């Protein structure tokens, strides 16, 4: 059953249009990829979904409810969280303060303790550094914190914008293993990546976004096919 649906989304900044009708869906527990070159509109797509970039058309549905055009602080309360590009942790605050802020977006205030315990199981290193300034963490630890901070809100849909950015290959693998675990626990996970190969192998479906439109959709099987992948990414398929 479809949990999350983006329908014909259009968005832009000022006089410039960036997205020209993007549609995608995700079901409970699915991991979906979105890949595409710099400036394709990937971050704009996420921004438009979570309410930080103005919509110019189309809608977003979460569990059947139309959440398009709502404010970011209301959208997160409905169960949709974004781990933004560049992590955006509060570097001057401690790790636990960052996590506590993440609790703000919960619908159910009773589960706070459980949510923090789950973070402890998934990212033990954050518990070790609980009272340290978040800015002192390594890049990989900061990414874990950014994910954990979104996770404590118990999202039904988790969006991640380039979680691999600036991380070494081993750390990237580590982070993606956790994302798989998160999806397996029932959350729909949508990952934006510039480095397509990171996500195509894992994702149920990977959409290629170029020039503000979804140009192709790849399945896990397609991912093995190097030629098909390259063609989809660079947009010279069938020509």
């Amino acid at each position, binding site marked *: 059953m479809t949990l999350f649906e983006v329908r014909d989304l259009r968005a832009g900044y000022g006089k410039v249009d960036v997205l020209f009708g993007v549609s995608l869906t995700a079901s409970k527990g699915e991991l979906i990829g979105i890949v595409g070159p710099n400036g394709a509109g990937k971050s704009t797509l996420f921004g438009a979904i979570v309410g930080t970039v103005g919509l110019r058309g189309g809608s977003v549905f979460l569990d059947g409810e139309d959440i398009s055009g709502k404010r970011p*602080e209301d959208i997160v309360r409905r169960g949709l969280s974004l781990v933004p590009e560049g992590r955006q942790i509060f570097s*001057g605050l401690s790790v636990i303060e960052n996590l*506590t*802020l993440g609790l703000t977006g919960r619908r159910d205030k009773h589960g706070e303790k459980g949510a923090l315990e789950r973070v402890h199981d998934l990212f033990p290193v954050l518990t070790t550094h609980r009272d340290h300034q978040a800015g002192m963490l390594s890049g990989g630890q900061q990414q874990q914190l950014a994910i954990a*901070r979104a996770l404590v809100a118990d999202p039904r849909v988790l969006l991640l914008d380039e979680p691999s950015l600036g991380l070494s290959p081993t750390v990237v693998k580590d982070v993606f293993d956790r994302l798989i675990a998160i999806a397996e626990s029932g959350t729909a996970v949508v990952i934006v990546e510039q480095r397509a190969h990171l996500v195509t192998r894992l994702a149920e479906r990977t959409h290629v976004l170029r020039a503000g439109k979804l140009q192709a959709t790849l399945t896990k099987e397609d991912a093995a096919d190097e030629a098909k992948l390259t063609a989809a990414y660079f947009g010279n398929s069938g020509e």
Partner: protein
Amino acid sequence: MIQAILDAVSLGGVYALAALGLGLVFGVMRLVNFAHAELITVASYTLVMTHQFPLVVSIVLSVVVASLMALLMELLAYRRLRGSNPATMLIVSFGVSVLLQKIYELVFGALPRSASVATGLTGAFTVGGVSITTASVVTIVLAVVILLAMGYLIERTKLGLQLRAAASDFQTARLLGVRSNRLIASAFVISGALAAVVAFVNVVGNPQVDPRFGLDITILALVGIVVGGMNSLRGSALGGFIVGAVLSLLNVILGNGRVYAYSWMFVIVIVILLVRPGGILSKFATKERV
């Protein structure tokens, strides 16, 4: 000598409170709310107009009135300006300031209104042969208590955490569920309450309230937050304290030359800013506002 130090500390404390009120609003909105002066003024009028009431009632009323007015400023004027550039917001806050001064003039007249408020605090007492004014001691105690309470609020409560987060990156705070309207309104209400405390101390010292009563202290508190570092509440309070204390000491040191106290204080301010352009406790955390 001891009295001079007490006076410096108490004036420093008052300016620290004024600067903190300004700094709170600046933190979440990047708005230099010049009309903070009119919050101090309205609280002062409230104290003078209700001087026949029991002191506690009078103080509570002044806090309520100043907080309400701060909230109205945000709802009627500043809310529309979210995300505008800081210069626009500053100009609008000048406008709000002037408008309120005119309204005060219409309601209370241009001449000072006066009444002795808290007469119990105007005397002096002697400790070990040194005469000390009651007002300076009460002011210091009040400032310390309020600053500690604010420290607790900012460092230990959820609201404080949200205020700190929003001051460093409001957009991310909203993504996590921080309700922007509610948070900004809270910052205004708290700044109104702080203005009322400043008003109380000032009215006790000088119960001659006119429409421009809050202006001087607000301008100096603004200097204070620039000196201390606009991006940190600690810096704002510290800067306010330094400006108040230095001004008070200069008045004593300069004796007959005290008309130059402001000039010398600005010399000191300029020197501080030359050494630390971002303020004493400067941090660079300027991100896009809501």
